[in-house]
């Protein structure tokens, strides 16, 4: 047990380097996710029209409720949770056929294709 071990092992240098790089990394991630919504907002004109149908909001509890009655919160949370799980269960069954149009109903009619749909 000796401080020499620390010095010989470059302990301080490694620690300083390490914390510097960890902070640098997470600061960059932090900046990235801070900037992301604005960039998407601005760049999003085209994409938004294309994908409006898909962009669903996350299930974060809205601000107005954050200080509300906990029982209410619990109830809302439960419903969100349940719906999400339901959706997940359905997702599980979903396949990768394009779901966007008329066409789809026809595929379904054939009743043959489903199993092939996830093929490589």
């Amino acid at each position, binding site marked *: 047990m000796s401080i020499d071990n620390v010095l010989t092992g470059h302990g*301080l240098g490694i*620690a300083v380097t390490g914390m510097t790089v960890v902070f640098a*990394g*997470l600061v960059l991630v932090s*900046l990235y996710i801070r900037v992301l919504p604005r960039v*998407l907002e601005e760049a999003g004109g085209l994409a938004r029209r294309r*994908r409006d149908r898909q962009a669903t909001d996350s299930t974060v509890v809205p601000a107005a409720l*954050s200080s509300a009655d906990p029982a209410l919160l619990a109830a809302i949370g439960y419903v969100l949770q349940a719906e999400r799980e339901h959706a997940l269960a359905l997702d599980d069954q979903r396949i990768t056929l394009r779901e966007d149009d008329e066409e789809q109903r026809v595929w379904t009619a054939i009743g043959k294709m489903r199993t092939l749909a996830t093929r490589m």
Partner: protein
Amino acid sequence: MDILLEFLGQSGFANVTLGNLVMIAIGITFISLAIVKHYEPLLLVPIGFGAIVGNLAVAPGMSLSVYDEGSVLSYLYYGVSQGIYPPLIFLGIGAMTDFSTMLSNPKLVLLGAAAQVGIFLTLIGALYIGFTPAEAGAIGIIGGADGPTAIFLSAKLAPHLLGAIAISAYSYMALVPVIQPPIMKLLTTREERLIRMKAPRKVTTREKIMFPVGTLIICALIAPGSLVLIGMLMFGNLLKESGVTERLAQTARTGMIDIVTILLGFSVGASTQAQTFLTPQSIGIFALGAISFAIATAGGILAAKAMNLFLTEKINPLVGAAGVSAVPDSARVDQHVGQEEDPNNFLLMHAMAPNVAGVIGSAIAAGILWSVLVG
């Protein structure tokens, strides 16, 4: 008759040592804690049972233990010793993690960085005690409070200590509800613990899709050693968020992670043979591990307090403690301690931000240590 006597000479009664019995008792304790206290059961049950099996694998002349070439356990352990299981676990975790709270709270990410101070101070402590730099790095990572990351780095830097480091990391992760609260209360005032935080904003699907790609690129550029762990974590998350690969995400977060968890936990447990595990080094590792968790917790809390000096919307410093990772126990502890002061204060969703950021932070730290300390 000779055959019977010879056979008995090979049997466990003749070869199991007191040390093995101690390890078996520890294994049983792990299983009991998991069942009775519900501490991290998905890991403590496999590790505990693995420890029992590993310490019964002592017949001379038979290829049984994880260290015997060609044994079944050695094949299962290969995924540990080569660092293959941890990234696959991370794949599954990515596929089950919702990063929304973090995306809506970018500044809380920094708390996940601050808590990594536990890793590096522990490294210095381990050097001081006399461990080699590579060993010290592997021991320090216990403070990352992240089992797969600890196993991954130990496999690279100090494979001979892997068992002790993994057991230490999982033990303290299981004990987070015991370790953290006193430190949290010590370092915060009642007023601080009462702080309520603004509800997070909504996060769009597009943000969630772009998050894993950008985060991977940032982390891998800055710390290439974190590439595999963060790459798999973010890959799993992209499978989850893309909206078009749900069946892959579903498998990654169920069957696949379960299989890997079973194999990883069992074979890590089986590697804790008394003959290699019950050493003074292991005691040092456990002591350093406890210190590491304490420092990490303190680091996260103090960073939150420091940030509050500059912020108008104050952070409840309790959420800083979640920066250690140990997802999600650590975030739940924050919630619990916060509610002791104010039962209507819901910190959990806020604590999840530093909590998942801490996972990324530990993986970056592991990447740095790997590249700086490897051979």
